């Protein structure tokens, strides 16, 4: 029996900001969920199941928040699942929801991811003082910066490429009303003059800490037929993982990322991603990850990703816009960040991205990664129902 086609018919986000002191976590997720329901013109009663994701519980110190959020998400009397795959969780949460529909377990599923970073301790919540180990901790930036240096050495990329990505993403964010950072007076010079935090990573090349939630309504073919707006169709989706560290691990271009992309492209019938995919929302928490993932995802040959960035291909006006929404560099409610990538990809192929719409986008890739570059989740969405 063939799989049921899956359509995205509702998308909702909060206006992401540094701190939402006016709402509880329940109030925060509620906003995103209601916007998604309104977009789909559905009510709580139309939802068969809820699939929720967030980053580790110890970020906010709230254990199993999904239990107390059941009321806020209309999940009482319905199946509710929590997904957890570190920073990639927003993506894998959407994929679990999608699989519930493609397997015909449910018809219409609400999927949602969130983080309230203002009430969390994401910097040190996972950096525990483990006994007998050397207390040498450098936070997330310190973990990823050496891999960025390795990329620069391996490819010979000029050291300005990271600042170009940050400058582009922050300008794109100005066109996205939901983005957290709206730096109206941003200039390339300001990015390049910002303080070095974890050399080679500058302050303006890192993601902010945001409070936010993102929700999507996924449904089957019959649900799509009732949708008031054009749906985005899921053409392929996959997750892959690998250990944090092992002999032979390529931190610059992890094998699990390559395998995940290959699986998605196979499902979607993509043979030349650079030509066939119109826009990408990829998880770039530090600017240099744009050229790194361009290679990992097959948009450029190994060692060539930075050339796409440098030549303007990934600009909103380029022929492969990357992070038209402003990306993780402009908005980072950690647990939600992956789902925002997936949702923004869907907005693009629905033609509903507003000012940051990529002209004529028909196929878009949403990408997320997490942990020590060890969990990957991706989906490819299209404006047309996939050929079965």
């Amino acid at each position, binding site marked *: 029996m063939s799989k049921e086609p899956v359509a995205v018919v509702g998308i909702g986000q909060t206006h992401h900001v540094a701190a939402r*002191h*006016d709402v*509880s976590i*329940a*109030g925060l997720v*509620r906003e995103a969920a209601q916007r998604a329901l309104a977009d789909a013109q559905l009510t*709580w009663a139309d939802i068969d199941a809820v699939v929720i994701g967030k980053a580790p519980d*110890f970020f*906010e*110190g*709230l*254990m199993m928040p999904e239990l107390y959020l*059941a*009321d*806020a*998400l*209309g999940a*009482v009397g319905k199946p509710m699942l929590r997904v957890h795959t570190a920073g990639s969780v927003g993506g894998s949460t959407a994929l679990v929801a999608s699989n519930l529909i493609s397997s015909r377990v449910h018809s219409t599923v609400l999927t949602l991811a969130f983080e*309230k970073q*203002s*009430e969390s*301790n994401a*910097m*040190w*919540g996972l*950096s*525990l*003082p*483990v*006994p*007998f*180990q*050397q*207390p*040498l*901790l*450098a*936070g997330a*930036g*310190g973990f990823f*910066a*050496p*891999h*960025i*240096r*390795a990329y620069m*050495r*391996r490819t010979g990329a000029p050291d300005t490429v990271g600042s170009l990505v940050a400058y582009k993403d922050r300008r794109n964010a100005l066109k996205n009303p939901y983005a957290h950072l709206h730096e109206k007076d941003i200039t390339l010079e300001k990015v390049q003059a910002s*303080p*070095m935090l*974890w*050399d*080679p990573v500058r302050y303006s090349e890192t993601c902010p800490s945001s409070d936010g939630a993102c929700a999507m309504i996924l449904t089957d073919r019959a649900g799509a037929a009732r949708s008031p707006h054009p749906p985005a169709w899921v053409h392929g989706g996959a997750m892959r993982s690998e*250990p944090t*560290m*092992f*002999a*032979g691990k390529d*931190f*610059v271009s992890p094998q699990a990322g390559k395998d995940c992309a290959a699986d998605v492209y196979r499902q979607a019938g993509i043979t030349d991603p650079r030509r066939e995919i119109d826009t990408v929302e990829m998880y770039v928490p530090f600017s240099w990850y744009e050229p790194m993932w361009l290679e990992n995802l097959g948009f450029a040959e190994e060692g060539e990703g930075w050339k796409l960035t440098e030549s303007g291909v990934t600009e909103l006006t380029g022929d492969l816009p990357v992070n038209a929404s402003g990306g993780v560099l402009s908005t980072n409610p950690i647990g939600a960040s992956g789902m925002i990538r997936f949702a923004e990809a869907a907005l693009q192929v629905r033609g509903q991205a507003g000012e940051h719409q990529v002209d004529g986008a028909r196929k878009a890739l949403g990408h997320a990664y997490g942990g020590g570059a060890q969990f990957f989740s991706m989906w490819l969405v299209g404006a047309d129902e996939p050929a079965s």
Partner: protein
Amino acid sequence: MTAASPPEVLRAPLVVEFPFTRSLGPVQSAFLTGLRERTVLGVRTGDGKVLVPPVEYDPVTAEEIRDLVEVAPTGTVTTWAWNPSPRRDQPLKTPFAWVLVKLDGADTAILHALDAPGPESVHTGLRVRIRWAGDRTGAITDIACFEPYEGKTGEAAGPHEGRFADMVTGIIAPARLDYTYSPGRAQTRYINALSERKTVGERCPSCHKVYVPPRGACPTCGVATTDQVEVGPAGTVTTYCIVNIKARNLDIEVPYVYGHIALDGADLALHGRIGGIPYDQVRMGLRVEPVWTEGGRYPDHYRPTGEPDADYDAYKELI
């Protein structure tokens, strides 16, 4: 003759603790501020039930609910469990009963502690009242506990605006996890060897890669690593970053260099601080050796050996 007993596996306490903050939203804000003012608030649902403590969204209809009502500080125990040995931060220091109390005017029960002389004095249906804390801040601990009460039944629920002067909008919610940590047999061997200033990795019998530190199994092949192999002491800086942010509870001055160091004979890099050289002169390929301090369990940092830098091709597979 008996076999030598294996060396004891290391163990140590590990406490993880943060004072998390929590924004309350409108309903919890009214509830906790109310407790400060000795007023217990519930919320009325679409089908007319009064929930105490109140919630923001109707469990039946999923609609937002804001219809606050005041209930009595007296109620009835609906079920209970005796707690013979109170733990740290529990409401009472002496043995007490955990109780679910349905306050007069409420349709649901609230969990709290009952101060009672012993389990024989507690029963379902027992009438109780709130004992208010002397110093109230707008927290669930403003109810010190419940106590047995022989008086009349409280009034039915009445509407309440939920507004007070100086509303509490956020609380601090400390979270604390108490673990006993053990690094396991393989890492115990590694740590014990370090105390003799030796770095001992373990080789995978299948792929022959040498893991430092060892984890007891090869993550690629999924088999136990048994062969112990001394590596180093010198190694090569494969990549690094210069840290300019001071870490929490860490007594290292910034900037410092956080390096990945592939010790000679190891098949993956470990992480360490590079010192003994100005931070801006550290480079990929730099040859380094460990610097030990008296009584240290691990090298304090790594410093240049003075050898020529390693050729990129010699370590590029280890990055």
